[in-house]
């Protein structure tokens, strides 16, 4: 009887199911629809190469952070410390450059600030794996500690003067007309895509996210992966904050990452509802980040008040998750 029903399932496969199709391509369709609507509404401003590059530039920090977040969500770990981590990444880099002007160059400052972020990510992972605290709470705690530490170290003062131009070039320069942040985002995305899709490590991350017990019984050292995934996420968040500092030309000790936290989660979850419903993946995250960027850019080009951006984004998130959820519900 079971064999029969599986045969039926196989036979039923070629029929296009609208809900299944929507779950896979719904976000792409809405992205295309939004692009078309905005292009028609403001054909003079919106559909230009400059504006499209502008959108990419606007989402580059968000995208970089969201890619990192994808890696730990693949394992089922929520990282709420990315906001504080971004603040840390930008502030530490500028602090080093200003305070140790002679001994620390831009490459060292970048390496140290991302290194510190990654190290805190490893601590997050150790707390999760070996103290058995859920990532949600553990990263909430470390995020709070980082926020406090930054305020203490900085005396709440923003670093503005003395930041070298080489550092600001990270955020403001361009190669062949494509701004550096876009290139950084795409490079991070490509690297993490290769990691998740094509290496043993990435496959193990997906396996653990799917079933930790099955992975453990298959001989995977499950506990070693949380520190890795959270370190990757933290490094990306630190890098994102560093890019923000370079764009701004200032090292702020608070509030840099907060704007990115919810958008990064939104991008990753919208991504999990595209192409491969129910699965977090880098390409999906890119689509999610683009969708957010297009909405924000398009609405502001149309002159719609800013608050609408939040409302539209929230609605979109619900629709995206529902369309992915419909499929999961039908599967069982």
């Amino acid at each position, binding site marked *: 009887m079971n064999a029969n029903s599986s045969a039926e399932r196989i036979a039923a496969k070629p029929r296009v199911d609208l809900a299944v199709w929507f779950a896979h391509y719904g976000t792409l369709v809405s992205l295309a629809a939004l692009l078309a609507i905005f292009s028609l509404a403001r054909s003079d401003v919106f559909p230009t190469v400059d504006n499209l590059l502008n959108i990419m530039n606007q989402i580059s920090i968000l995208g970089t952070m969201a890619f990192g977040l994808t890696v730990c969500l693949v394992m089922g770990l929520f990282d709420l410390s990315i906001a504080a981590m971004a603040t840390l990444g930008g502030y530490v880099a500028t602090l080093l450059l200003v305070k140790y002007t002679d001994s620390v160059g831009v490459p060292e400052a970048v390496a140290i600030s991302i290194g510190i972020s990654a190290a805190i990510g490893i601590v997050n992972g150790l707390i999760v794996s070996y103290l058995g605290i859920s990532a949600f709470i553990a990263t909430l705690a470390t995020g709070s500690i980082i926020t406090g530490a930054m305020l203490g170290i900085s005396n709440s003062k923003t670093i503005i003067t003395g930041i070298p131009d080489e550092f600001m070039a990270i955020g403001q320069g361009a190669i062949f007309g494509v701004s550096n942040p876009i290139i950084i985002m795409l490079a991070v995305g490509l690297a993490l895509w290769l990691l998740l899709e094509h290496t043993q490590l990435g496959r193990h991350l*997906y396996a653990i996210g*799917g079933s930790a017990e099955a992975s453990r019984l298959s*001989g995977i050292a499950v506990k070693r992966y949380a520190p890795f995934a959270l370190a990757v996420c933290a490094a990306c968040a630190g890098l994102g904050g560093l890019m923000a500092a370079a764009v701004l030309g200032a090292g702020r000790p608070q509030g840099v990452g907060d704007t990115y936290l919810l958008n990064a989660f939104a991008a990753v979850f919208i991504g999990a509802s595209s192409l491969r419903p129910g699965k977090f993946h880098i390409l999906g995250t890119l689509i999610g980040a683009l969708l957010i960027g297009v909405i924000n850019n398009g609405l502001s080009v149309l002159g719609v008040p800013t608050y609408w951006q939040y409302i539209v984004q929230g609605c979109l998130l619900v629709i995206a998750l529902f369309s992915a959820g419909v499929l999961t519900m039908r599967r069982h």
Partner: protein
Amino acid sequence: MSEIEAHSAPAATAGAVLSGCDPDAFLEVRGLVKQFPGTRALDGVDITIRRGEIHALLGENGDGKSTLIRAICGASAPTEGRILVEGVEVSLPTPQAAAALGIAVVHQHFNLVPQISVCENLFLCESMPRRAGLFVDWGAMRRRAAKLLERVGLSLDPMTEVGALRPDEAAMVAIAKAIGTDARLIILDEPTTALLPAEVSILFGHMRRLAADGHSFLYVSHRLAEVFEIADRVTVLRDGRNAGFWTRETISRRAIISAIVGGQKVWSEEALSAPPANGAVVLRAEGLKGGRVEDLTLELREHEILGIAGLPGSGAEEALDLLYGRFAARGGRLNVRGKDVVFHSPRDAKAAGLELVPKDRHAESLLPGASVRENISLPNLHQYLADPIVRFINRGKERAEAGEVAARLSVKMASIESPIASLSGGNQQKAILGRWLASGAKVFMLNSPTAAVDIGAKAEIYQLIREIAASGAAVIFTSTEVEEFPRVCQRVLVFRDGRIVGQLLGKDATESNILNLAAGGADER
């Protein structure tokens, strides 16, 4: 078989009494039939439960016990037959109707909320006493709870959180909750699964006292030894029919086991005709202990299919987990292919050439959202690496090997990239076994590999197990279905209370012999 006939005499006389109206009966069930599409789960079942007796209901999975319970407690209406409570015919369309007549069920996990107090749990289903119709009157509730606990003989602060109770106390709270709703007949469905032996005897003490007060119990359990200890009368179901009835005076372990097992063919030609296992020793355990396992001593040879049998909680299933390093050993020695080993995790066990197919496919072995390919290649990704540093995976090679394994096991699927969730249970299980064929494991440990698998796939999986052994690997097999051992294994070790209490070889490894050893014993009654 002869034993069954010997004991059918008391069953017949008892039956004669029952067909009249038993003046002591609280509940009488007559000719109950439950027809499901395609199967008849109950086919004319009779059972009489007297006031103040502990009546055991036995039978294998799928023989109708649950269906009978569901009919008695009003969860599903029977197709035919009569149910009488205190001599009056009743209909039980809903659980509430059954509860109103004094019939309550205590399920295996007691249906208690662990985070709140005993007191709140006792009054969860009825309205709590209140002040001004709004606020819970804690004082009154506490007094009522204390009175109820006193009635069942439990000295316990009613404000204790249920999660902090011992399992036997939790069981008694569940029983108290039933008595609080004036239950006269309490159906206990596998209440001792989570209980330790000492806790079981405390629970039995309480049950006997409540029975003396006139409460009746219908006791359902797999643990035969406990049934022989507690039951006043025993009813056995087989294939949805009455297969025997015993009173305390006539109880015979052998006869009851024969009735449970029935007259089926008890061993398979294939298992017996397998070549004798005289290969090299691949695994040797001496006095290994951990979890519920107190002493695991065995020797396993190439080509061998060894069964480890035991009733639930005996440690038989844990023995496989222990060998695979799922939890730490507290002592003893383990030797795999001539090397002394200590496994700190399944990873170590896998490296030594062992593998485990756990019992719960969905919770422990499947990657639910992944494809068939990903499920098969899970433990074997290191075989497909394109480079040793970044560890890129050669997906073509991975796909080819997964496809080959799936084809060899004739896994029915649309393609190797289909989601594993789209396969039937049997095909999912074949993919899981295929996972380890591809890994080249030398010792296969299988816990209930045919659970939730249809009959056709079962036969294929048995055949696959034989092929694994024929190819030179060794197999350790355990199952919650005792009837599988004679079909699969050449040698069966029987566990009781964490120790091996006997070994059965070839034709002696029958279901009834296994159950007899597992249930306690050499002391024949």
